[in-house]
């Protein structure tokens, strides 16, 4: 259930997916050395769906979404993103990364480039968009995340919230089909969290397919189609937000919720 339409929508037409299933993970396992980080992960994400993934730290939630754009390599099982299966094939990896945007906990903006250059870099070099056009697109998205006036500044001159919104704009400039958010508000000062969440809500209202690792339960209730709870590398429980928060089934979920919802 979506909250009553707010004026936060970004008016972005997400690029059409080629397939109905945006992300399909089947029997995925991953190890760091001997440590089994991800165990038999199965999840299907339909186009336009918004998944919130939560769980205690070290539960493997970040690792899981990082497998979707191959920042982490999985060892067994299948990861299929918009019909493209991720293997060691570099071409496939590039193809997936072009269409999957990612927002990080620590923004990972490029400090030596201006905000505008951060946004135009990938379109120019990866999509071969002419510079002028890329700048127009970047200005458009910077306006949408409400910081067009910062285009000429360097990331270090912005507040954390502004930096994270630039990071979102940077990802959007590639016209992604899917957006991954890896704890986008965890490194922010409390006062900055709302502006970033508002931007993400707007994105959701435009129908973007989103996988969000976050502990912002308010955001999960408002935006998510499904909440996935992970612990020690496994998916423990997945349900609609109402069911998940009001009637958690698994003991571990109940414990987790009792710890975070005061």
């Amino acid at each position, binding site marked *: 259930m979506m909250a009553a339409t707010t004026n936060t929508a970004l008016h972005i037409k997400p690029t059409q997916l080629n397939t109905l299933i945006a992300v399909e993970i089947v029997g995925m396992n991953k190890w760091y050395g001997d440590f089994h980080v991800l165990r038999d992960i199965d999840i299907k994400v339909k186009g336009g769906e918004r998944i919130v993934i939560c769980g205690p730290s070290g539960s493997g939630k970040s690792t899981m979404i990082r497998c979707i754009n191959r*920042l982490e390599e999985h060892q067994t099982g299948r990861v299929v993103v918009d019909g493209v299966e991720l293997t060691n094939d570099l071409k496939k990896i*590039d193809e997936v990364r072009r269409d999957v945007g990612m927002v*990080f906990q620590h*923004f990972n903006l490029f*400090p030596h480039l201006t905000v505008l250059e951060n946004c135009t870099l990938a379109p120019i070099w990866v999509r071969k968009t002419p510079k002028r056009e890329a700048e127009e697109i970047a200005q458009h998205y910077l306006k949408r995340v409400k910081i067009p006036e910062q285009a000429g500044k360097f990331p270090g001159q912005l507040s954390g919230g502004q930096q994270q919104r630039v990071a979102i704009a*940077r*990802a959007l400039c590639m016209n992604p089909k899917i957006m991954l958010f890896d704890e986008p508000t965890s490194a922010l000062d409390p006062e900055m969290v709302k502006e970033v969440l508002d931007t993400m809500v707007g994105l959701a209202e435009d129908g973007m397919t989103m996988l969000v690792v976050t502990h912002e339960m308010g955001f999960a209730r408002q935006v998510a189609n499904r909440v996935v709870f992970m612990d020690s590398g496994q998916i423990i429980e997945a349900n609609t937000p109402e069911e998940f928060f009001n009637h958690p089934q698994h003991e571990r979920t109940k414990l987790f919720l009792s710890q975070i919802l005061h």
Partner: protein
Amino acid sequence: MTMSEGDLAVAKIHFVRSATIEAKPPPVSMRGAVGWLRENLLSTKFNIILTLLIALLFAWIVPDLVRFLLIDAVWTGADRDACREIVQNRAIGACWPFAFERWPYFVYGSYPIPERWRVDVFFSMLAIGVVWLLWLGAPRRGLVSVYFFVVLPISSFILLTGWKAIGLQPVDTVLWGGILVTIVVAWVGIVVSLPLGILLALGRRSHMPAVRLFSVIFIEFVRGVPLVTVLFMASVMLPLFVPEHLSPDKLLRALIGIALFASAYMAEVVRAGLQAIPKGQFEGAMAVGLGYSQMMRLIVLPQALKITIPNIVNTYIGLFKDTTLVFIVGIFDFLHTVEVSRIDPKWATPVTSTTGYAVAAMFYLVFCYAMSRYARATEARLAKSERR
């Protein structure tokens, strides 16, 4: 003891400031020359002792130096008699006429006199490049690297070695010498070592075992061997393996040796810079879809090289001084021309060697200090624009 209003304000639980405290200038003891002296030279007992010791050291060295280089120095003369105490009947300092007369040899070595204008043109081209590089507001600064890495090497190679087709007499490198050779060797080392060092540094961090192994072996081998050995190998061993007619020029062999040697050091300097780049930068670049070479070229190297500039220049300064070692394979670099000249019987006096070495010291000091200042200035400039 009565309490002032301020004390009362601190003592009270409830306090509201009624008037803003205006900013006042600092006390006199902190201002002007006196303030500077107190702060920097006389701040603590230990500092006072150090100041005195250093003042004594200066008092001990500087007068003698000035007396030798300027007051007692001989400025004119035709041969050794001008600089001999017995002939002149006075204390004799530096023998400058020797340096003046030998200066062309110090600069050009045995480069044929009618062709020496070519060396001058080369020096001017290099000077233009350096000014272009240092002058931050210069037009078309983006082309500096093209000029330095492409235009200058090719044109100066043609200019210095000669090309019959355009009327430039070939000049055998055996005749090259002096500052010309020092500059050529140092400059080739500088121009080659940076790109090669970057490649080696990237290779050492590569995920491909073969590339990594090659880089590690190359870097560790070259770094584990003295430059003298590399030069000997390049000039003595190489001809044993290569047929006579293919055997490269002696200077070229030394150049290759020095360039490879400097590259190995540069690789380690660059690697340190690469390691300082946070993992998030790599991930950010990969996540927006950049490939490996784009990621390195656009994101990682610009940041890594920026923080490495002081170390790069430090390596260059070392390289500049290391060029003096080419004398052991019979190449007449600047220091070697001084060495040869100082034993010339025409100028044989007790002060000739000292004079020659003083000239050499000043030459190296000027160049190395200039490089060091450049590094400091760049560092300061980048620190100002560092907005991480």
